[in-house]
Structure formats: structure tokens, C-alpha cells
């Protein structure tokens, strides 16, 4: 019974150590220059995997220790195990056998409550002073040696990386723009465009594009120029002064993708 408790405690301790180690590694992973998004997800993933790995290790480890064959081996391993656990509990967990409690009782009692003079568990001290050291290194890393990246530096890197990627995509012709866009009239594109219209534009332009907050898109007037190229431009950059927001960050400008179909729908409603 006693052994069981000790085993459980040891198991808990190892799991805890695993969590501590993995979180400490996550702490300093902030310096990686990869886009923050992917890095964060991977870190979380690593933490989870680390914990699971240690849990499994413990689950395997404890039964393994209990599988000796002969009686001799049993007693020998039991002794070894006791020794090992003794060392562990003594040095790290710091638990005194419960029988020793009487000698640890302090004299005073407060409304019947007494206190034991147990040592502070060594693992507690390891944890406490360990985190103090981590905290000091953390401050040094970001503010003295400046090896860690502060939020705005992380941000600049992130934006820079995204800009490079975007330039690549533009060069490869993956995006259409206001000079390359062309009108599509096939029913499939039109209905896809209609779906996008219904999902995004109805609040201002009305369900039948008759206009509410935004102007009517079904009459013969074009405020910002007709034709697919002008309509594309209006949607892409918006007309901020009049409340038409720029959609270039929201619609996919990839060839044959949403943004194009929307333009087709919008300009197809009236004669271009």
C-alpha cells in the first residue's frame, strides 16, 4: 500500500518535471524567426507530445519494475526498488514516514490545530529556485543581451516574411489584378459570385443588390466607373470615404477564385 503511494507520487513528480521542462523550452522558443503563427502551433504541439511521451514512459516504466521472475529476484528487486524509492522520496520528495510524525509535532496548538516541523520538500525548493533562475534568464534574454525578440520585432519579421511570400505569388502570376481581370459569364461563375455576394454584401447593398446603406447595383449608373476592371478596383480598394470597405484582404485574389467571381456577379447585374 505504502509502496503504491510512493510510486504514484514518483509518477506525479516525473510528469510534473516533464511539464516544467517542456514549458521552459516553449518559453525560449519565442526567439525563432519563422512566422509566429506556425511556430506557436508547433510549440503547443510539442508540449502536448512531450507530456504524452512522459506519461507513456511512466506507464511502461512502473510495471516493468514489477516484473521479476524468481523469488530471489523479487526480493532483490524489491530491496533495490525500496532503495531507489527511498532515495527519491528522501532526496526529492522529502516525505518522512508517517510513523515519524509524532516527533515532528510542534508544541503550540491553535484552537486544536497543530503543525508539523517537516522540511520544505526538496522538489519544492528545486521548483522555486529553478523558476527564479528561469525568470532571471528571461529578463536577461529580452532586455540585457537582447537575444529575444520583443513583440514589435516579432511583428516586423512576420510582416516581412508575408510580404516576401506575396511578392513571389504575384511574380508567378497566381493573383489577378485590375489590369488582368476579365469578365466571366458562365452560369457556374455567376452562381458562385452570387453566394459570395449574399454572404458579404447584403448588409449594405441589399438582398437583390437594390441598395440600402450602399448604392443600388442594379440600375444603369456606376458611381466609380463601370466595366469589370473598374468594378474590380472598387471592390479591391474600397471607397473608404463613402463607407465601402476594401476587400483585398478578405477575398482570395487567386485566379478563378472568389474575388473574381464576385466581380463577375456585380458587374453582370447591369450592362457594362
Amino acid at each position, binding site marked *: 500500500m505504502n509502496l503504491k503511494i510512493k510510486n504514484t507520487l514518483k509518477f506525479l513528480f516525473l510528469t510534473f518535471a516533464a511539464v516544467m521542462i517542456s*514549458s521552459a523550452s516553449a*518559453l525560449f*522558443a*519565442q526567439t525563432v524567426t519563422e512566422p*509566429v*503563427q506556425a*511556430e*506557436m*502551433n508547433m*510549440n*503547443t504541439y510539442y508540449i502536448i507530445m512531450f507530456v504524452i511521451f512522459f506519461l507513456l514512459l511512466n506507464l511502461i516504466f512502473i510495471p516493468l519494475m514489477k516484473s521479476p521472475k524468481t523469488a530471489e529476484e523479487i526480493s532483490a528487486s524489491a530491496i533495490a526498488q525500496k532503495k531507489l524509492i527511498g532515495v527519491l522520496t528522501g532526496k526529492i520528495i522529502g516525505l518522512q514516514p*508517517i510513523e515519524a*510524525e509524532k516527533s515532528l509535532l510542534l508544541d*503550540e496548538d*491553535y*484552537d486544536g*490545530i*497543530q*503543525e*508539523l*516541523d*517537516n*522540511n*520544505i*520538500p526538496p522538489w*519544492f525548493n528545486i*521548483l*522555486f529556485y529553478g*523558476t527564479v533562475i*528561469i*525568470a532571471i534568464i*528571461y*529578463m536577461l534574454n*529580452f*532586455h540585457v543581451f537582447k537575444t529575444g525578440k520583443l*513583440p514589435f520585432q*516579432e*511583428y*516586423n519579421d*512576420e*510582416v*516581412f516574411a*508575408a510580404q516576401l511570400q506575396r511578392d513571389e*505569388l504575384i511574380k508567378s502570376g*497566381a*493573383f489577378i489584378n485590375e489590369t488582368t481581370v476579365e469578365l466571366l459569364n458562365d452560369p457556374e461563375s455567376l452562381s458562385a459570385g452570387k453566394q459570395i455576394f449574399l*454572404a*458579404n454584401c447584403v*448588409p*449594405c447593398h441589399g438582398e437583390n443588390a437594390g441598395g*440600402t*446603406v450602399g448604392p443600388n447595383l442594379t440600375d444603369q449608373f456606376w458611381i466609380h466607373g463601370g466595366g469589370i476592371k473598374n468594378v474590380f478596383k472598387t471592390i479591391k480598394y474600397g471607397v*473608404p*470615404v463613402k*463607407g465601402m*470597405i476594401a476587400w483585398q*484582404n*478578405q477575398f*482570395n*485574389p487567386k485566379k478563378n477564385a472568389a474575388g473574381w467571381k464576385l466581380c463577375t456577379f456585380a458587374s453582370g447585374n447591369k450592362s457594362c
Partner: protein
Amino acid sequence: MEMEKFSYDNRIVRNFAIATVLWGVVGMLVGLIVATQLFAPVMNFANQYTSFGRIRPLHTNAVIFAFVGNAIFMGIYYSLQRLCKARMFSDLLSKIHFWGWQLIIVCAAVTLPLGFTTSKEYAELEWPIDILIALVWVVFAINMFGTIFKRREKHMYVAIWFYIASVVTIAVLHIVNSIELPVSFLKSYPVYAGVQDALVQWWYGHNAVAFFLTTPYLGLMYYFLPKAANRPIYSYRLSILHFWSLIFIYIWAGPHHLLYTALPDWAQSLGTAFSIMLIAPSWGGMINGLLTLRGAWDKVRESPVLKFMVVAVTAYGMATFEGPMLSLKNVNAIAHFTDWIVAHVHVGALGWNGFLTFGILYWLIPRLYRTDLYSNKLANFHFWIGTLGIVFYAVPMYWGGITQSLMWKQFTPEGILQYPNFLETVVKLIPLYITRAIGGTLYFAGVLVMVYNLVKTAKQGQFEDNEATEAPPMIGDHSAQTKHKWLESRPGKFALLSAVVILIGGLVQMIPTFLIKSNIPTISSVKPYTPLELQGRDIYIREGCNNCHSQMIRPFRSETERYGEYSKAGEFVYDHPFLWGSKRTGPDLQREGKKYPNLWHFYHMADPRAISPGSIMPAYDWLFTQELNTGSTESKINGMRTLGVPYADGFEKSANEELMKQANEITQDLAKNDIRVESNKEIIALIAYLQRLGTDIKGESPVIK
């Protein structure tokens, strides 16, 4: 030795116990209503007094200050008398404390739905109530220290250390965070603006969690857990180490609520560093609690009291490990502004505070009424349904928080936001909000069962106002074996030392932020609000918009793509109070200005679901009928000028003229779309404010190296 005869005041304990249960039921019921509002907007009951923005603060204030507050006083008044072997210092002060505190709660319950709020979380109450709180707190402090000074026990037990630190620190926190300039009865502006206000507020908010929800409860645990288990405290030395390290380190960690914001980087890093160091001191309490039960685990199986306490202490351990993890920048980047935080605080609130309170009540009420608990079976039922409730509450909120955050951050391979429409990420959470409300209902049902059980217990027992007892007088021997024992017999010095310990962290963080200019670089294009915008801002505050909308764009590409340029410290220099928010149930509004036409806001505030189908925002009908109170403009402008906002001298006289001019411009713009609305309606002021938001630096291109 001659024994002195005296009696314990049990009546005050019982009164606080009744208040605990009563306000607990009320606070949790309001919590259940706000939880329901998030998936069924009809539960806002189409009137201003029950809309989410107004009653969410009612829920948090009720459970923190009414439920937990009364429970703290119940536990302290019971244990302090017995640990000091003395009756409370003054029965009159006890009474004033009790009724004063209930008066504060009633004031809160009336003013918050009426829209009187400072907007600062857990410090929403307006200035007259703030003064009342300070006075009642002083009464409590005198009563407590008076009792400690006339004690018959030479040394103060560890529970009393925690009580002392809590009383001292809460006084400091409350006063510093509530320094505000009244501009009318029930309306004030904090003296701090923007970044400084945020720093002070989260120094307060974080340490209200520390010194209202944590340290007093640790004190209660140190008394009631060993009493209920009949076991000695595991380690006296651990008590000393974790007490002093906890109160010293906790106070520094406030800035972890402001990671990736416009707060100076060094302050953010200090917040993280001290949060990491906080793990062990926090866990000291859990270890001492759980190891005290060593050799008594058979009793845990039998006793519902101990079961509640074990889960409470375990929940405390989980929440205090999670807290530091959430303070790591890369975890915070995901969790902040999401329901993950809601899950985190409820593990603490429902698990630690709730369950410890229930454990204490099940132990205490039978003793006060000199009888046995009416039904152990019902108490066990409460335990299991409560535990289930916590699980059903926490899991969906963790799930929802992570899901939504990842959706916010998801880019397509072309570098475009995958979910550009914020609403898409909200609609995804609806089933989780429903599950959470079920969890809350289970928990609440357990509380009702407890109420029945306790009432039955009281009915079958015999209550005694004054419990007669006797104890020898304290011997005037001042020799001490250790330095700490020396300190334990000197309450005045003990209080002084703990005050010094808790002041260090706050001072180190605040003084540089207030005094060193480079911490908040000024931006010349940032101008004070116009009178109409200022009035609109106060409507924004009154309606509690900040409960669901942040005004803080963090430096992530996913946020600048969605909302615009990230927030700069210099943008908030005229914001008394700051309105950064702590949760994004709706999208960030920092750059909302000029994004949509006036008409859009007009329609959207009247019927959010007509403009954004599926939205969970309540409608704000009353803004369209209520007239703007322009009588307050002059005193508001004067107040702001006193606080350092550069309005020209005499501007307050012509402010209303300018206000009407701007309002007319908006109504004329609306009239173009056949909307006929008078310029003096509140909605016009709110639109003016929303259209101003973040526009001062709009158009400036982001810095790219």
C-alpha cells in the same frame, strides 16, 4: 493558571453565512442568465437594464464581492475569534461591517443595471460607493486588528498572516485604483489615462484575484481543512516560505494581463518573469493542504466536507499552474481575448472559491446550530453534480477559446485571412456556449440542493448567539526561539512588513511608467475627443461595450490584416478611462472609425441581426429614444481639463454648440438615406464616438524593416 471566561460571537458568523448563501444564489443566477444571452440574444429581455454589457459586471461583482466576500468574512469572524481565543474586538463594529457590506452590494445591484459604471473590471462601482467600500473596509480592519491585539494566544497562526496581508493589500489596491475625479453624482473619470490606467487597473485586477480570491481563502483553508480532517498542518516552514514569497511575487505579475499590448515591453517582460516565479509559492498552499490530509484519505472518502476541500485545493493548484503558463507570451498570444480565459477563471471561481466555501458551510452550519448535517447524501449529491458542472463548464470554454483563436489567426496559402468575417468565428462557438450553460445549470442546481440541506440543518438545530468558552490570559513573555516566531507575536510589525513587501512590486512598475516619457511616445496627430464624441464614449461605457469589444490591436499580422495598424501607446493619452477590454466576444473596435458609413451603425445598433445575420449582439433600442444629457458636457470638459486633457480655456462654454454642430452633420448624412432622427438622441453621440475610434493615426503605414 487562572482561566478567563468569555464568549465567541456566533451571530455575526451566522449572518455572514446567510449572506454568503443568499448572494451566492443571486450571483450565480445572474451568471446563468449572461451565459444564456450569448447563444440566445432574446435573453437580453429587450430592455437596457438587463442587457449583457450591464449585467455581466453585476455577475462578476456579485460572485466576487458578495458571495466570496461574505464567505471570507464568515470564515474570518469564526476562525479569528478561536485562533485568538478572544471575542471580536467590538460587536458594534461587527454589525456596521456586516450591514455596511450588504449596503454596498445592494448599491452595486442597483447602480450597475442602471448603467453607472467606471468600466474598470471588478472596480466598476462609481465613486460614492468606492468611498463607502473604503470606510467599511477600515471598520473591518479596526475590528480585526483590535481582536488580534487583545488575543490570549501568544503567536498568530498562519491563517492570521494571510488575513492580515489580505486586509492591508486590498485597502492599498482599492484606494490606488479608485482615485478618480467626480464630474457629477455617480459619474467620474479616473486620474490615469490610457497605458497608465491599464497598468494600474490590471495591477488591481490581478491582485484582487490574489488578495481577495486567493490569500483570504488560503487563510480559511489553513483553519478549516485541518479542523475538518483533524490532522496537523504538514509543514510550518513551508507556510513561512510560501506566505512571504506569495505576497511578494504576486503583486508584480499584473502586466501579464497586458502582454502584446501598448504597455512598455520591460513591464510586459516583468509580468511574465514574475508569473513564472509564482508557480512554487502558489503551490506551497496546495502542498501544505494536500499533505495535511496524508494519513486521512480514508476520511475523505466518508466526508463530503473533505471531498469539497480536496477538489477546491486541487482546482487551486491547477489554476495557479495554468496562470503562469498563460503568462508565457506564445501561449498568451493564443489565449488572450478568448474563452480560454473564461475557463481559467471559472476553474478558480467554481472550483477553488466555490467548493472551499461549500466545504466550510457544510462543516460550519451544523456546529453553529449544534447538530449534525441534515443529509450527508444530499451533500454528496451536491459534490458530484457540482464537479460535473465544473467539467461541463470548463471543457467547452477551453475548446471554444482555442478554436476561435486559431480561426482568427488562420491564413490561406495566398496570405489572406481564412475567416475574414469575425462573425464566422462566433457562430462556431454557439454549441459550446450552450454546453457551458448546461454546466452552469448543473453547478447551480447543486447550490440549490445545498441551500435546502443547510436550511433543514438549521431548523433541526439550536442556534446559540454567544458560545461560552474560557482561556488563560496571554503571558507577557516576549522571548522567541526564532525571528519569525518573534514576528508572529507582533501583529503591528507583521502588518507593516507585509505592507512593505506588497508595495515594492507595484511601485517599481508604476513609477517609471508614470514618470519616464519614453515609455509612452507621444503622437502629434492624436487629439482630444470632441464634446459629442466624449458623450458618446460615456454611452459606450454605460452600455458596457468594453465587456465584449476590445480596443487593442495586438502586433500580429492576423490582427493588423483584420483590424488595421496595431495600437500605439501614444494613441490613448486622452483615454480616461482606458477601454482596451479583456475579451473579444465581438470584434476589436480600435480602428472602427470611418470603416462603415453612419447609416450602417444606425441600423446595426437598432437590429444587429438585420445587418449581420447570426450576430449575438443585443439591440440597443433605447439609444434611439433617449435624449443625450448635454447638461453634463460642461462639467465633463472641465473634469477632463483638470486631468490634463488640453481643451482650451473657456471651451466648456461653447462645447455644447460644437456638440450640436457635429450631431447635425451626422443627422444630415443619415437624412440622405431617408433616416429621420433628431440630433439630440443618444445614438448620434455613440455613432460620433465609433466613427472617431482609431482614426487619428489611420492611414499611417506600418513599420516594415
